[in-house]
């Protein structure tokens, strides 16, 4: 009897949690439905009416209309996010290696500085960089924003990889040194291959953040042909009239790359977040 009672309660409880999850997911579901329905139908019957017509018109409109130039935005974002993921990973790994395996003066200071940089708001760097970029010709250049994103990613990735390196067995570095391997050999040939899960986690998160950036792009990329996808999407929302069909198609296109990365590397991704927040 008792066993039965508990299991019934558990079923209800599970059901409740599933309803909660469904409600949490509902805005996404609505977004998908709106993107594949004619907007007039959404307005008249609501997106919750699953019946009626379906069409890819919104997607075609967003992708093909040159005034929206989503293809250009996606291309720019892909270039920016890819390079701004690879560069800081390498540099951050080098810092993490130094913090863990090299002895030098000011190591604690460097570590504290890294923690400090991790928490500084983006707003703290844009004005002097804006002036500098205008002077050296990096303003309104994709390269300029790539360099900034790369630098900005170094502190948190260094902290993250340092924590990961700490969990690895330490003896192999000593062993390799006894065998006469140089530090760079140990780093490239032994340590990095051992750290692939951490590198995947850090890359996925960094890519997502750079892809989603809006603030730096607004400051440093004023010319439409240089716009990244977040700027393109923001522009799609008119001041007074909002075409939700068009907008939801655009939103889905803009979130697709990070979403795919999240779904492909979910385990690393989530573990990365936990490591980033909890470790220390």
């Amino acid at each position, binding site marked *: 009897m008792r066993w039965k009672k508990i299991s019934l309660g558990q079923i209800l409880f599970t059901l409740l*949690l599933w309803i909660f999850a469904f409600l949490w997911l509902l805005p996404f579901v609505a977004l998908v439905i709106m993107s594949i329905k004619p907007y007039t139908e959404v307005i008249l019957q609501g997106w919750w009416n699953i019946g009626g017509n379906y069409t890819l018109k919104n997607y075609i409109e967003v992708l093909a209309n040159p005034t929206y130039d989503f293809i250009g935005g996606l291309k720019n974002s892909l270039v920016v996010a890819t390079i701004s993921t690879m560069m800081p990973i390498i540099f951050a790994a*080098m810092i993490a290696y130094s913090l863990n395996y090299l002895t030098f003066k000011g190591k604690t200071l460097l570590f504290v500085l890294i923690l400090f*940089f991790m928490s500084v708001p983006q707003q703290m760097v844009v004005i002097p960089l804006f002036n500098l970029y205008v002077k050296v010709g990096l303003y309104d250049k994709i390269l300029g924003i790539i360099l900034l994103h790369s630098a900005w990613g170094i502190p948190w990735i260094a902290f993250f990889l340092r924590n990961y390196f700490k969990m690895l067995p330490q003896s192999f570095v000593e062993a390799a040194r006894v065998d006469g391997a140089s530090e760079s050999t140990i780093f490239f040939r032994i340590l990095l291959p051992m750290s692939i899960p951490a590198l995947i986690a850090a890359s996925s998160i960094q890519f997502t953040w750079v892809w989603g950036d809006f603030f730096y792009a607004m400051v440093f990329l004023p010319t439409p042909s240089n716009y990244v996808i977040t700027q393109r999407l923001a522009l799609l929302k008119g001041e007074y009239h909002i075409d939700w069909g068009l907008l939801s198609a655009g939103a889905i296109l803009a979130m697709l790359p990070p979403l795919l990365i999240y779904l492909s590397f979910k385990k690393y991704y989530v573990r990365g977040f936990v490591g980033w927040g909890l470790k220390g």
Partner: protein
Amino acid sequence: MRDHNLKDLIFFLGPPLLILVIFVIYPIVGTIILSFMLGDTLTLENYREVLFETIPLKALIVTNPGTSPPWGALIHNMVWIVIAVPMVVILGMLLAYALRKTFGSSFILGTIFLGMVLPGVVSGLIIRFMFDADIGIFPRIFALFNVPLLSHTWTIYPQTALFALILGSIWLWLGFSVTLYSAGLDSIPSSLIEAALVDGASEREIFTKIIIPQLKPVTTVVILMTIMWVLKLFDIVYVVTGGGPGGASTVLALIMYMYFASSLEYNKAAAVSVILALLTLIPAYWYMKMVLSGEKQ
């Protein structure tokens, strides 16, 4: 330990430190200096003007606030923290605990985590949509119950704009807290709970007397990270309300952008940045202390 020669250090630290010096350290110092400059003189004038600005769209603190916003960006940020932090902590902890033994919990966790993956602009559009009078979920529900104030588009009325954003931000950020709490729960030794069960403790006693105290370090991290995240929010506010209507949903990061991009007052923008950074440093300092004390053990 063998002695590392300078060559190794230059190889490993030279390039990354050079980048950090140019793109992080130099501009941080530059912003601080700019915030104290007026023409060629050092002064506190920028801070004074920024803090006592009275135009609602740029005010940090509105001098005679009404019962509904605009109250000023600084106050909005504080209200945001006061509402979002407890919600994120309580919901995150309860949900993680409830999901422990539930069928399909990893799917549910994955769903809630989605908010963390979205670009801010997309999140903003979804928030705008959730609170739209014609097609949004919240206003439609309140329309059924005949609450006129809450059945219009929340984001275009000063009474509701800020709160729509705050609720939306909780929706986005809950994934972070649930994930951290789930990991925290996994690391509580099950022997603790079994022992308590043997002693005849109820489910509720176990939760309040064992689980909550054991999760305290996680709670601290969630609180600190949430405060930092809320302080830095820019894109969802920019996209959903642009700080409006009439400055009813401004935040510090947005004010900084307005001084910078709309009125080209770089020194004032720098002053707002420094204020924002100082506020962020309070939780950050706490977090750094936590990390560094964990190092020593």
